[in-house]
Structures are given as C-alpha cells and as structure tokens.
C-alpha cells in the first residue's frame, strides 16, 4: 500500500496513509502518515466507535492540508483499551 502511495505522489497526486504498522510504512517512506497504535485491522478506529473513526479520518484530512514535507507522521491519540492492557502487542505472530 505504501508503494502505491509513493507511485501516486510521484505522479502528482497527494496522499495520506492511515495505518497501524508504523515501521513498515515509515521504512517504505510515504508523504503523510496517520499512525494508529492498535492491533492490525482497525486503523481508522475501534469497531463500533464512530466518533473515534471520524476523529482519525479528520487527522488524515488535516495532514493532507497541513503537511509541509514528506515523511510527516502523526499519531492518533488513542489507546486500544481503557485498562491500557498492551498484551496484544505480544500476542500477534507469537510462536512457541
């Protein structure tokens, strides 16, 4: 997806990526990136939380308007759960 973003930018089309795999997107190098620190799957916001989804989409709009140079990342100001339980970080692609 980041490669398609780059291709569009190279051809004059402004883009913003909204995603949850920060290292993959930033290593590839895109113009504008809204990073949502959630388990992979719901980068626009928690399922069922329409207000959060609108807020994260709005961050994307804002970045389209305001980013001054490439590789601008902003982070959505949300955590996955209210207890700040981050066991999801470990449980993805876990083995043994």
């Amino acid at each position, binding site marked *: *997806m980041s490669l398609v973003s780059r291709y569009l930018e190279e051809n004059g*089309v402004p883009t913003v990526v909204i995603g949850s*795999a920060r290292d993959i997107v930033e*290593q590839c*190098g895109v113009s504008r990136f809204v990073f949502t620190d959630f388990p992979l799957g719901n980068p626009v916001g928690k399922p069922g939380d329409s207000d959060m989804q609108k807020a994260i989409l709005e961050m994307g709009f804002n970045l389209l308007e305001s*980013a001054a140079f490439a590789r601008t990342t902003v982070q959505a*100001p949300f955590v996955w759960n209210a207890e700040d339980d981050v066991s999801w970080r470990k449980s993805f692609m876990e083995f043994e």
Partner: protein
Amino acid sequence: MSLYTPSHRIAVSYIDKSRELYLHRGFGNPYRWASHANAPFAKLNKPLSECTVAVVTTAVPDEDAGSKRKLWSAPCNAIPENLFTQHLSWHKTETHMDDLGSFLPLAHLKDAAEQGRIGSLGSRFYGIRTTFSQRQTVQEDGPAVLEMVRQDQVDAVVLIPI
C-alpha cells in the same frame, strides 16, 4: 479511564515480528520490506473542501476474490455492508472486522462531503492486492490505481492498509 491519550509513543515492529516468524518456520531468507532513503511529496493544489477524495483498501468483496487477489474497484454510491478480510494478517484473537468504518470509512467520507469538509467522495473506491512481489505493486497496481484516479478526477487519495 478514557481511551484518549496524548502521550503514547511506542510501536510494535512488524518487520521484526515477521522476520522472527519466518526464521522460526525455517525460511532462511526472510521477506525484505520495501525501504527508501527518500519519499516523494505532492502538494494539495486547492482547498480540501473543493477536492474529490478517493480511498484505497486491501479488503476484497468476498472469499473467492481473496484467493484470486486481483485489483478491483466498486462504486461508492452503494456502500457495502462489509468486505472480506479473513485472508489478511489482522490480529484475529484481539479484534474483529465487523465494522467497515474501522478500516474503510466510506460512510464517514460521505458525511465529510455532505458537511463540506471535502469537496466530494470519489465515484469509486479501489482495492489493491497484498502481494510479496513489490515489482507487481509498483509496475502494475500503482499505474492501474493512477489511471482510475485520473478517470475519476480524484484530487487526493486516502490509503488504508489492513
């Protein structure tokens, strides 16, 4: 506690996780994620309230499409109830994909157009393939999406990888 936090600053490394998993499974030559020293940058050349905005997803219409992995598009005037994502690497023990708005916010984009935040929503949304072949993404999918963007007179694109 609310879910709002202004100060979270750590991230999972999926590059490390995928490398470790591949090595564990006996693949001696792990996938090399794309890496670039520079990144292109195109400026918005008019107010967002006058822009047609399109969106790109990695979801597919149904299970059959998931196995075929083709580039696709669909009109935005009939928002699908949901799309197929089971073939993708989302966190299956931690979340679910039953709410389209959490990964393809067509309804929110439509609202934004009605409220004048963006000019309009593109007539179609686009689906690209997830593939190990970076050549295929750059040489086939990139140009195909660009062509649709130009046909649909799109001014800015939101890309949402799952």
